[in-house]
């Protein structure tokens, strides 16, 4: 009895708990309107789109964990560049699917290295470094795209839009990455080190943590995840578009915070990323199905984000 109430009381205090509660509420509110019809389709679409947000969100979370001021604003441009170049490389040829994936991941890796070098060698604050770099990535994407829309190979497009045992393939990828990320963060030395840096960089450095190596690997890891998302998203939507990454700038930061990771760094959690990602999609589809226009939808999304953050901050107390 005692342990049950204890575990209950710790569950609702978990920061990610409210993201799932709100997601369920949004889902229920949508189904209320359709009188229960289309629930399966909605859930499947939610998991598909949430997967894209979750994968970039996980990369962003690792960076944010490093401490205040650390954020990657080049994620949208990296996604666009990786999607554009990998689809151009494959040119619709099914035999090039895996090499195409390697191209996308390679673009991400290159972008991550470039971001890190700007931060390290030129000592530019990460926000400005990744922002300036994103302009360059975007330009390369515009230059190589030339307004053509190259279709992904059929097999790849089938995979990205398909499902296994009723679960969208993209969601399976996203969940797998989340599980790996959870292990890295919660169970590995690497994860401990990242949190330690976010909590007190000076103490972390003095205790012998290879701080620069951690920064490099985190920024590169996030960019590689952005590259992967660009590859999957371009395959899912039948081709790369120059603005395909645009909305993921805000989303990647929003899911981290709605999920309950501390924006001040040093404290993060993976389940919350998926909760936040599902919530972001379900809110929009709920407002859509109630027939609200784009303006009202945007306002409601903003108000809901602020409300959740304000409510969560009250639970944690000030730090």
């Amino acid at each position: 009895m005692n342990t049950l109430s204890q575990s209950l009381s710790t569950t609702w205090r978990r920061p990610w708990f409210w993201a799932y509660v709100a997601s369920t509420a949004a889902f229920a509110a949508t189904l209320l309107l359709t009188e229960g019809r289309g629930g399966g389709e909605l859930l499947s679409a939610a998991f598909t789109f949430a997967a894209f947000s979750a994968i970039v969100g996980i990369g962003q979370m690792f960076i944010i964990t490093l401490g205040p001021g650390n954020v990657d604003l080049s994620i949208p441009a990296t996604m666009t560049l990786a999607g554009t170049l990998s689809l151009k490389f494959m040119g619709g040829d099914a035999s090039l699917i895996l090499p195409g994936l390697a191209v996308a991941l390679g673009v991400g890796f290159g972008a991550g290295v470039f971001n890190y070098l700007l931060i390290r060698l030129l000592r530019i604050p990460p926000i400005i470094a990744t922002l300036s770099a994103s302009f360059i990535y975007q330009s390369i994407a515009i230059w190589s795209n030339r307004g053509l829309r190259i279709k992904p190979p059929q097999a790849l497009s089938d995979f990205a839009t398909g499902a296994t045992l009723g679960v969208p393939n993209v969601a399976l990828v996203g969940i797998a990455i989340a599980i790996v990320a959870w292990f890295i963060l919660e169970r590995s030395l690497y994860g401990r080190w990242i949190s330690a840096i976010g909590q007190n960089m000076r103490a972390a450095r003095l205790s012998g943590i290879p701080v620069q190596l951690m920064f490099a690997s985190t920024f590169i890891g996030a960019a590689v995840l952005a590259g992967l998302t660009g590859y999957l998203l371009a395959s899912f939507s039948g081709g790369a578009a120059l603005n395909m990454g645009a909305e993921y700038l805000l989303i990647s930061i929003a899911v981290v915070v709605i999920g309950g990771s501390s924006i001040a760094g040093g404290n993060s959690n993976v389940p919350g990323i998926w909760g936040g990602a599902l919530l972001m999609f379900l809110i929009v589809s709920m407002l859509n199905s109630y027939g609200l226009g784009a303006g009202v939808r945007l306002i409601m999304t903003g108000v809901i984000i602020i409300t959740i953050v304000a409510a969560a901050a009250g639970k944690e107390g000030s730090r």
Partner: protein
Amino acid sequence: MNGKFRILLPVISLGVLLAAVFYLQPRAMSYFGLNLLFNLAVPIALATIAQMMIIMVNDIDLSVGTFVSFVACVTATFLNDAPLIGVLILGASILAYAALGALIHLRQLPAIVVTLGMSFVWGGLAVLILPSPGGAAPGWIRTLMTVKPPLVPMAIVASVLIAALTHLLIMRSATGTLLRGVGGNTKAVARSGWEIAKLKAGAYGLAGFFGVLSGVCLVGLTTSADANIALRYTLLSIAGVILGGGEFTGGRVSPVGAVLGALTLALAGSFLSFMRLSPDWQIGAQGAILILVLAVRLIFSRKTSGQGGAA
């Protein structure tokens, strides 16, 4: 970086860029040429000052761009058709900014997320007010923005005025010192008896005020508005503050530097179109210029102190 060197970087980067423009296009060295080059500098400078107010208290505002767009939409519709309602809406939006500042402090919220959320709200309001591009600029602001003072173009006169006034307000007045103190050492300011929530509300209110000025001036130049007109101002304003020698923490900002940083960014845009660079590469070149200028900053910070920059 100490104060003396802080202002040198934006001055030099602006000077070098201006020299490059004059070298490439000597005809730009005229009243008309300068007017063209700095055409959009005034709204960018005002938006940068708005961002600076927030960075001054150790926060960051990701909603500047959507807020300026919202103001532009109000200016091109209400302020033109029913000036009284327009003024009321803009006044209310400044109050909303101030309230946000208080809320962020009282609930200890991360500003980056709250302003991110607000960017959706302002964007939504802008779409509601002006669903498709249009509207018209009120005559008085159109006249003000196109006035042709003797010798020096309007954009430069206005920039000097903005820099001088905000310098007096932030660097020379008691209020300004107090506000910078909030960024420098919040606890010390609180212990000496000031209410931090009120001060933060003040800083955010000032940001809202300059955001409103930016939007109104922008419409004066463009004569119409749309909901996405100033989205890039968010990134431009952050870059402008940093370029101007400001830092993300510690209340270390420089209004004169911020205005110069904004002018440099505005000039970089004009410079690239002057060079007839392929449109594909214009954004990329802007990024490269930004990186270049910040790389130069490294030399300054090395000279003055062993440490500096990020990470």
